[in-house]
Each structure stands twice: as structure tokens, then as C-alpha cells.
């Protein structure tokens, strides 16, 4: 076999199914025939990866087979089945190859198989629950593991002294302690595999599972300390060595956690800047988490702890930063990898057990170990729980304790550790290996099989899955605040106090630092629940066959330019970024010239009533950007129409909402509070087309799907899943277009320049373009520009100025166009605008400079844009009237857009 390739690939897996034995391989001709071979068999070149893939395939197929029968999987945990399968496969391998192959190698296990599982569990760990029970988890993990290790080791030694272990087993106290340390740790993989199927209540689960994750640090330390003591020989161990051993416990655990947190921080920070390269977001998550694992491993810190903390720490920020699709990708990839690794681990465990050369059976040792680990686990749990219950609000009752004792499964970690022992230093290694295998098999198979009936029989509180409701979410927050306040009043700085403190710190500093501004804005738990509920409702509504195609002349906010013709990939991307949201609508609305109006209305009517044509000209296929497929778009439309209608009817029936000024105010306008006054006036500048649906429009937007949420939030930051366009770029393209139109130079005052006709054309794609590429580019870009002008106006306006770009002309043009008389509920508002605009393009030089630098380094833009909302107020008040007035344009656009 190509042994050399295996370490090269880092895959000591060494594995192939029995049938894949190279000796049986048909092809592989001895020497290649001279001349051109029509067909060549090159098994050896692909052997190693091929075998790995094949093993994974075998494991996956086995999984599928297991799950074919519901009966079997409901009775037998998957891990048991996999181990049994491993035994069978191992037997076959042994029979065919006459030697044990493809065993679980510690290197493979620790470097490749364990990290995905731990990352998965750390990342998806319910953090609130985890921290709520942190005290108990830590106690069980640290005290419990120490207790188990020492008592088991000592008791085994006592057993040997009593002569119940055969004298063949040459081991001293230290050897037994070493064995005790590796056999005592509850294994996260085994626990997860079994408990996930048992569905005990969350508290119980998090305690057992959290313990199994966190005890890694203790296990690692104990193992290493004992191992080095054994190697030194017990006579040479100094008192300082014991102290060092204790100290290393802290170093390894805290160090591991610190490494994890540092990487979590890095990860969160990195994902903040992936706006334009969405596609690598999932990769980043995995890379940095893996880097955390390897770094900790390298520094011989607790790697499991590191990756757990990394996942736990980064999740909140990463989830907020990365796009919706990346989130799904991360979730599925993580789950896939973890379940894959888990499957392989159990299967290889089974295979490894077949190797008879490793076996050195000693009944006394095996039975003694089995008894002691069970007994001391139970005893330890009872003792610790008794202590813990003095401090716990909800005491752990006896049933919980039984499950916790019984759930102390041992698994592959113990096996890998025992394989790693040095036979020359520890003569009893073979006995230990055999015992470990028996223990692992016993706990996984016997306990795994029986824990489900036990849980049922004891009537352990199961986890109840109920859908979150807004009320619950809201009131839960209230409770948190109440408890924190009561702790303040009582003057006791307890858990709630510190959690409150942490949350405030997080809100003030960490989230600001690690989250994108836009993500930070939409990140509110209550809002989140609301949003998810809406989605769920809408989906169920559609599922129930909700009739959505209505002829009420609805206008979807995502209408125009959908059906425009072929585009270059650039424009494609531009459109992508405006997809689904109402970004482009505004462009239409801002064109106020009379005859365009009817076109616009007709256009919107048509578009609104029909589903948009699918993309037929999607010629560009980019590796870096994923486009939504038609189905998804359609779903989105259906969803929007639905929600709109539902909300309409809901409002009219349930709440008699009169059209107060605040209510119909479009959401976008209201997003930035600082613009309060300007907003209301801007709203009034809306064209009548929208007026009828004003209130609905306001609400629809709140229930758009997530991508749209993203692009909505692009008010402050142009963010979308795909194709993010920055202001600088857009304007430069517009600039070129502007040169075509020829109407622009550096404009000293917008009033001098008449509203250019090209503007109107640009706004209405169906008018201007006969498939002319340039025009299309422009129409797309101009659609983007106003959005960006709103978002990063403070920066971009100056860059526009410096570039002498058309938005300068365009903006006044838009504002200048006479507002439609029907629209104006308060006619004076639009009238104000032109007068306000007068000084509007006297840019302060400093700003212009700043803007230029932005256009040069677009990487700065996110930061600046994120700062912008903070600076908003100051801009209004402190900066020159020029910028303040430029906000007028923005407001106007915004109103018009809706």
C-alpha cells in the first residue's frame, strides 16, 4: 500500500474496505505498455484519498440503511449500530487481509475526527443555558473528573494489591492512576451520540454534555502529568512536580479557553469585513475554528476547550455578520462534518476492537474497572450534586442524578489516549487497551441501549419543544431585567447582575466592534423572533394554498427592471444587489416628469399583478457569487404579497388604525431616527401610486425575507448576499455615463444645471434602453446610486463632487422635478426642498478629501458607514449647510422611493 502517501495527506486512516485490497485490484498492470495507452489503471495514485472517501461512503450508506427501519433506530442508538458494523467490517478485513487494518489512529482522531464534532457542539451550544448552568458544569467537569480518575486509579491499584488482578499486569500506582485518568473522562462524542436521541430536558443535557466537553482539559492534564510521572519513574518525582501538575491544570484549561476566545474574536472581526466576498464566509468559520484547535494542540493546551470556546464565543457575532446563505452553509457543513466524523469514529472503534494482537485480557482488571467507573461515577455525582444543590435555584433531583451517573459514557477519546501510551514505559499497556475497549463498548452499547428505557421508566422530564412566541420572548427579557433590578435592590451581585453587566458591555463595546453596523442594527432578539414568526406564518399560509395572485393592483416593492433584457455580469450583479427589495422603486418615483408618470404607473401595475418573468438571460455564471434561483424569488414574491394582504386585513379588522402620520410612514424613512422631521416631509413627497398602499407598504417591508432585510438595511450600508456595490464604483460608472450624456461638468451649483433628460431616461429603463449596453449599465447604476447616496451620503457626496459625477446633477434633478399635486398632503414640504437645496453643494473641503479617500480605498467604507449613523447628528448640526442640505436630497429620495 502506498504508505508514504498517507502521512503526507495526514491521513493515517490507512483504510480500505476489504474488497478494496490492492492485492485484489484487477488493473494496475505491472509495467505500462509502451506507447499510448488507451486505458491505464492507476490505483496507487489515488489510493489514499480514494480509501478515505470510500470509508466515509460506507459509513454514510450504513447510516442510511440503519435509518431505513424506524424500529431499529428508535430502540438502538446509532452509535451502537455503527460500532457493531465496525466489528463486522473489522472481522471481514481481518479475514481477508489476515491482519488488522484500518484502525482508529490517535493522530487521525485528534487532528481530523474530533475537531468537527467539538466545533459543532460548541457552535450550536445553547449559550444561555450553558452559562446558566456553568457552575454545575464546571464542578462536574473538574471535580468530578479528578475524583473519578483518582478513585478509579487508586481502587484498581488496591485491587491489584489485593491480588485480584493477575500478576501479569505489571503496573504500579502511577500506572493505574494514568489509566484512571484516561478512562475516567466522559466522552463528548459518545454522550452527544446517545443523548441526542434520548431527549432529556435541556438542563440535564447541558450539564452532562457540558461536562463532557469541559473535562477535556482535566483529562489532558491528568494524562500528561501521569504519563510524564510514569516516564520519570515514581522515585524521581519531586514535590515541585506535583505543584507543576496542579499549575498545569490551570494553564491548560485557561490557556485553551483563552486561545479559543482569541480566535473567536478574530473570527468575528474577520467576518465583519466579508461583505464583498460572501462566498468565503463559511470557510472562514471553519478555518479559524480549526486554527484555534491546532494552535491549542500545538501549545499542548486543551484543544477541545479552545474550539468549544471559539464556537461559543464567536457565534453571536458571526451569525450577525455573515449572510443568510452563509449561515445555512455553515450550519449544514458543520452538521455534516460532525456527523460524518462521529460515524467514522464509531465505525473505526468497532474495527479497532477486532485486532486481537492488541488484546491482553485480564478479567480482574476488566471487571474491576467496569465496576469502579460506574460506582465512582455514581458516588461522585451524588456527592457533588448534594453540594451543588445548596447553591442551585432548581435543585437536581434524584432522577437527574441517576441519569447523570448512567450517562457517563466513555468513548473514543479514552481509546485514542490509551493507544498513545508507550509500551516500553508502561508494560501493562495491552491490558489497559483491552480494558478500555471493553469499557467503551460496554458504556456505548449497554448503557447506550438501556438509557432510553431507563429515562422513560424513571419519567425523566423530557425536553419539550414548543415554538417560541413573541410574548414569551418579550416577557423573558422583561424577567431578566426585573431580576437584574431586584438583585440590584437587594444589593446582591449575583448571576443576573453579572449577566446584565456583560450584556451591557457587549452592547456597548463588543457588538459595536465585532458586528457590522447594519447587522448590529437589525440584531435584536425580540425583532428576530417577530421576524421568524412572520416567516413561519407566511410559509404555512402559502403551504395551505393561500391565494396570492390578487388583482388588487398590488405593487411589489421589488418590481421594475426585473424583466429588462440581457446584461453584462456587472449589471447583473448590480441588479442582484437590488434584488427583491424596493431599492429601485425609488428611482421611478423620483422621476416626476408628467408623462413618465403614467408609464410608471402602468408599468408597476403590470409588474405588480404578474409574477416577474424569470431570468432568461442569466448567462453569467460566477463562481464567487451565488444567485438566487427563480424559485426562491418567486417564493419571495408570494410571500410578500401574502403578508401584505394578511396585514391589511388584520389591520382593518383588528385594529382600527387610522392613517396617522406615523403609521403610514415608510419603514425606511423611519429607520434613521435622526432624520425624524425630514422623514415625514419626505413621505409626503411620495407619488400617488404608492399612496394607496402606503400603510401596507410600510408593513410589508417589515416582513420581507431575510435577504431583503439585508438589502433593506443597506440604507446604512449597501449589503446584500451577492454583488455588493460600493458607492465609489457606482459613481464612477455613472461618471462615464455622464460623459456620454455630456451635460455635466463640475457643478458649482445644482440650480444652474437643468434637470437632464437622461436622468429621466435612466430612471425608467423601459424607456431608455433598446438593449444598449451602456444605457443599461447606467440605468442600473443610477438605481444604486441614490440608495448609496442615502446610506453613505456623508462620504459619497464629497467623492461625487470630486469626481464631478452625475449624481450631483441627478440629485437636484430629482428634487427639482415638480412634486405631484395629488401626493402632497402637506404641499409645503416639497416646496421647501428646492430652496433648501440652494447652498447644498458647497462642500467643505475636508469632506471632499475624506470622500476621495473613500473612493480610493473602498475597504474603509464599511467602517465609515458604520460610524455614520453615530455621526449623523453631528453632521446635521456641526457641518456646513452643504452637507445638511444634501440630506434633504436623501430624505426626498427616500420618501419617493417608497
Amino acid at each position, binding site marked *: 500500500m502506498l504508505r508514504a502517501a498517507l502521512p503526507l495527506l495526514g491521513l493515517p486512516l490507512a483504510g480500505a474496505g476489504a474488497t478494496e485490497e490492492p492485492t485484489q485490484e484487477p488493473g494496475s498492470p505491472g509495467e505500462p505498455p509502451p506507447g499510448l495507452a488507451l486505458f491505464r489503471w492507476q490505483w496507487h495514485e489515488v489510493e489514499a484519498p480514494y480509501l478515505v472517501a470510500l470509508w466515509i461512503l460506507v459509513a454514510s450508506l450504513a447510516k442510511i440503511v440503519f435509518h431505513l427501519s424506524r424500529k431499529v433506530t428508535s430502540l438502538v442508538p446509532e452509535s451502537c449500530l455503527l460500532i457493531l458494523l465496525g466489528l463486522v467490517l473489522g472481522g471481514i478485513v481481518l479475514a481477508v487481509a489476515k491482519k488488522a487494518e484500518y484502525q482508529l489512529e490517535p493522530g487521525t482522531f485528534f487532528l481530523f475526527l474530533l475537531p468537527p464534532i467539538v466545533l459543532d457542539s460548541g457552535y450550536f451550544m445553547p449559550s444561555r443555558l450553558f452559562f446558566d448552568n456553568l457552575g454545575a458544569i464546571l464542578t462536574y467537569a473538574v471535580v468530578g473528573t479528578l475524583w473519578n480518575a483518582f478513585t478509579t486509579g487508586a481502587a484498581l491499584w488496591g485491587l491489584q494489591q489485593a491480588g485480584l488482578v493477575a500478576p501479569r499486569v505489571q503496573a504500579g500506582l502511577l500506572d493505574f492512576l494514568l489509566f484512571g485518568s484516561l478512562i475516567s473522562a466522559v466522552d463528548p462524542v459518545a454522550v452527544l451520540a446517545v443523548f441526542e436521541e434520548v431527549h432529556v430536558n435541556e438542563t440535564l443535557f447541558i450539564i452532562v454534555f457540558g461536562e463532557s466537553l469541559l473535562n477535556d482539559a482535566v483529562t489532558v492534564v491528568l494524562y500528561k502529568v501521569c504519563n510524564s510521572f510514569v516516564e520519570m519513574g515514581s522515585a524521581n518525582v519531586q514535590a515541585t512536580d506535583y505543584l507543576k501538575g496542579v499549575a498545569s491544570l490551570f494553564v491548560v484549561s485557561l490557556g485553551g479557553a483563552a486561545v479559543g476566545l482569541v480566535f473567536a474574536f478574530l473570527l468575528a472581526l474577520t467576518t465583519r469585513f466579508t461583505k464583498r466576498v460572501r462566498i468565503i464566509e463559511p470557510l472562514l468559520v471553519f478555518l479559524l475554528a480549526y486554527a484555534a484547535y491546532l494552535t491549542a494542540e500545538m501549545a499542548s493546551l486543551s484543544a477541545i476547550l479552545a474550539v468549544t470556546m471559539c464556537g461559543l464565543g464567536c457565534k453571536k457575532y458571526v451569525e450577525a455578520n455573515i449572510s443568510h446563505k452563509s449561515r445555512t452553509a455553515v450550519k449544514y457543513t458543520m452538521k455534516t462534518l460532525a456527523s460524518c466524523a462521529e460515524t467514522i469514529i464509531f465505525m473505526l472503534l468497532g474495527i479497532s476492537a477486532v485486532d486481537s494482537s492488541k488484546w491482553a485480557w485480564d478479567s480482574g482488571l476488566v471487571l474491576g474497572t467496569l465496576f469502579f467507573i460506574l460506582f465512582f461515577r455514581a458516588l461522585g455525582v451524588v456527592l457533588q450534586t448534594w453540594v451543588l444543590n445548596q447553591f442551585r435555584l432548581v435543585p437536581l433531583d434524584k432522577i437527574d442524578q441517576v441519569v447523570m451517573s448512567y450517562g457517563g459514557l466513555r468513548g473514543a477519546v479514552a481509546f485514542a489516549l490509551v493507544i498513545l501510551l508507550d509500551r516500553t514505559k508502561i508494560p501493562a499497556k495491552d491490558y489497559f487497551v483491552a480494558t478500555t475497549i471493553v469499557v467503551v463498548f460496554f458504556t456505548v452499547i449497554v448503557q447506550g441501549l438501556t438509557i432510553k428505557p431507563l429515562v422513560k421508566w424513571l419519567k425523566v422530564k423530557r425536553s419539550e419543544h414548543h415554538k417560541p412566541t413573541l410574548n414569551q420572548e418579550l416577557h423573558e427579557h422583561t424577567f431578566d431585567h426585573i431580576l437584574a433590578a431586584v438583585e440590584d435592590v437587594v444589593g446582591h451581585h449575583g448571576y443576573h447582575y453579572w449577566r446584565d453587566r456583560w450584556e451591557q458591555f457587549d452592547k456597548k463595546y463588543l457588538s459595536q466592534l465585532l458586528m457590522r453596523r447594519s447587522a448590529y442594527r437589525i440584531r435584536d432578539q425580540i425583532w428576530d423572533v417577530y421576524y421568524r414568526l412572520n416567516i413561519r406564518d407566511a410559509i404555512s399560509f402559502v403551504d395551505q394554498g393561500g391565494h396570492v395572485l390578487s388583482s388588487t393592483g398590488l405593487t411589489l416593492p421589488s418590481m421594475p427592471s426585473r424583466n429588462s433584457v440581457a446584461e453584462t455580469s456587472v449589471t447583473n450583479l448590480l441588479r442582484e444587489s437590488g434584488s427583491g427589495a424596493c431599492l429601485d422603486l425609488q428611482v421611478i418615483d423620483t422621476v416626476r416628469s408628467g408623462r413618465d408618470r403614467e408609464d410608471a404607473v402602468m408599468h408597476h401595475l403590470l409588474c405588480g399583478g404578474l409574477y416577474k418573468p424569470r431570468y432568461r438571460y442569466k448567462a453569467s455564471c460566477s463562481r464567487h457569487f451565488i444567485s438566487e434561483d427563480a424559485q426562491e424569488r418567486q417564493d419571495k414574491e408570494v410571500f410578500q404579497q401574502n403578508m401584505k394582504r394578511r396585514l391589511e386585513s388584520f389591520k382593518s379588522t383588528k385594529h382600527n388604525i387610522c392613517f396617522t402620520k406615523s403609521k403610514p410612514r415608510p419603514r425606511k424613512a423611519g429607520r434613521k431616527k435622526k432624520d425624524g422631521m425630514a422623514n415625514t416631509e419626505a413621505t409626503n413627497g411620495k407619488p400617488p401610486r404608492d399612496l394607496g398602499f402606503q400603510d401596507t407598504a410600510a408593513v410589508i417591508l*417589515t416582513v420581507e425575507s431575510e435577504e431583503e432585510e439585508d438589502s433593506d438595511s443597506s440604507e446604512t450600508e449597501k449589503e446584500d448576499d451577492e454583488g455588493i456595490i460600493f458607492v465609489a464604483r457606482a459613481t464612477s460608472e455613472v461618471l462615464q455615463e455622464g460623459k456620454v450624456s455630456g451635460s455635466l461638468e463640475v457643478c458649482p451649483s445644482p440650480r444652474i444645471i437643468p434637470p437632464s433628460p437622461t436622468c429621466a431616461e435612466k430612471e425608467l429603463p423601459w424607456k431608455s434602453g433598446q438593449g444598449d449596453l451602456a444605457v443599461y449599465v447606467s440605468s442600473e447604476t443610477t438605481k444604486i446610486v441614490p440608495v448609496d447616496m442615502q446610506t453613505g451620503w456623508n462620504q459619497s457626496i464629497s467623492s461625487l463632487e470630486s469626481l464631478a459625477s452625475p449624481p450631483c446633477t441627478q440629485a437636484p434633478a430629482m428634487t427639482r422635478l415638480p412634486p405631484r399635486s395629488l401626493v402632497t398632503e402637506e404641499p409645503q414640504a416639497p416646496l421647501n426642498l428646492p430652496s433648501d437645496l440652494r447652498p447644498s453643494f458647497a462642500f467643505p473641503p475636508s469632506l471632499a478629501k475624506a470622500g476621495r479617500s473613500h473612493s480610493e480605498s473602498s475597504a474603509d467604507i464599511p467602517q465609515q458607514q458604520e460610524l455614520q449613523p453615530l455621526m449623523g447628528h453631528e453632521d446635521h448640526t456641526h457641518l456646513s449647510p452643504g452637507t445638511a442640505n444634501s440630506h434633504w436630497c436623501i430624505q426626498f429620495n427616500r420618501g419617493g422611493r417608497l
Partner: protein
Amino acid sequence: MGSRSSHAARIPDVDSIRRETGFSQASLLRLYHRFRALDWNEKGYLSRVDLQQIGALAVNPLGDRIIDSFFPDGSLHLDFPGFVRVLARFRPVDDEDNGNRDPKEPEPLNSRMNKLRFAFQLYDLDRDGKISRQEMLQVLRLMVGVQVTEEQLESIADRTVQEADEDGDGAVSFLEFAKSLEKMNIEQKMSIRILK
């Protein structure tokens, strides 16, 4: 802070308070110290200002409302029994196993309903026994950060009220409030361990 007295005997009416609230002697003593410490100018009662001076309470979004709930019916003075009575809501619920401390009174202050009632009256500003949409909106405004806009808040408020509202009066009564939380472990969520 306040270590001026060290005997529970110095607490006025200690027995009746204990009976009413179910606090242990040690907790009462502890609370009494706290009460005295908060009452820095030794008035014998607490005023709103005393509570407002607790630093962390000022940043609590619901801080003002919680302080208000210590002063029922618009009173301005909070004496020790009143102080303890409010805090008694947050005493953990003893279960039958170790609950022999608590003789089964009709409705102890820390019952589920009383805990819920405390939360409810934080919402119900006008004390009409119902959380109107407007009141819900006010709470939301306090609790949800600035990052959520007014319209979003309104839709959340609508939805929240709609969700809990069963009789269709556009407001959440206490019973509806309790019902909406029936799946939640209030006894656990609204208890503070230290207040045994």
C-alpha cells in the same frame, strides 16, 4: 455597608413579616441591612430617590418601572415590610421535598401568579388590568434598542398583543398574559436564589 444592627430582633414586626413573606431569618436580616443601607439618611423609610441612586438600576431599561412597583398606590414612603413584601415575590418556590418551611397558605407571595402579577403591572401602566397596545409599545420602546425602528416596534407590538389577545379586545388581560406564559417555568425564571 450597613452593619449597624446585627440582630433580627431589631427588625420591627419580624415575626409577622416572616409569616407573610416566608423569608428565612437570615434573609430578613440581610434585607434589613440592605434596607438600612439604602436608607442612607436614616429616615426609617425609603423614597424613590433612594432607589434611584442604585447605580445599575439607572441603566436598567425597566428600572423606573421597577422602582415604581415598590411604591404602590402612589405612596412616597417605602417601609421595611413593604420593601420585603415586594422582594418576597422573588423568593424561590420551595417544592414539596424541602418546602416544609412554607406552611401552605392560601397564596404565598412568591406564587406563580404573584410573580406574574409583578411582571404584569410593569406593563400595565394605567392599572386598568389590561395591557393595551400602547402600553406594549411603550415597553417595547424601552426594551428594544434603538436599532429597531418605530414601525417595526409597532408591528411587533401589534403582533404581540394579537398573539396573546384571546377575547379580541385588542388588549392583554392578566389572564391572557398568564396564559401566554403558561409553558414557561415562571417559578424558576422569576426567582433569585439568594432570597430564600
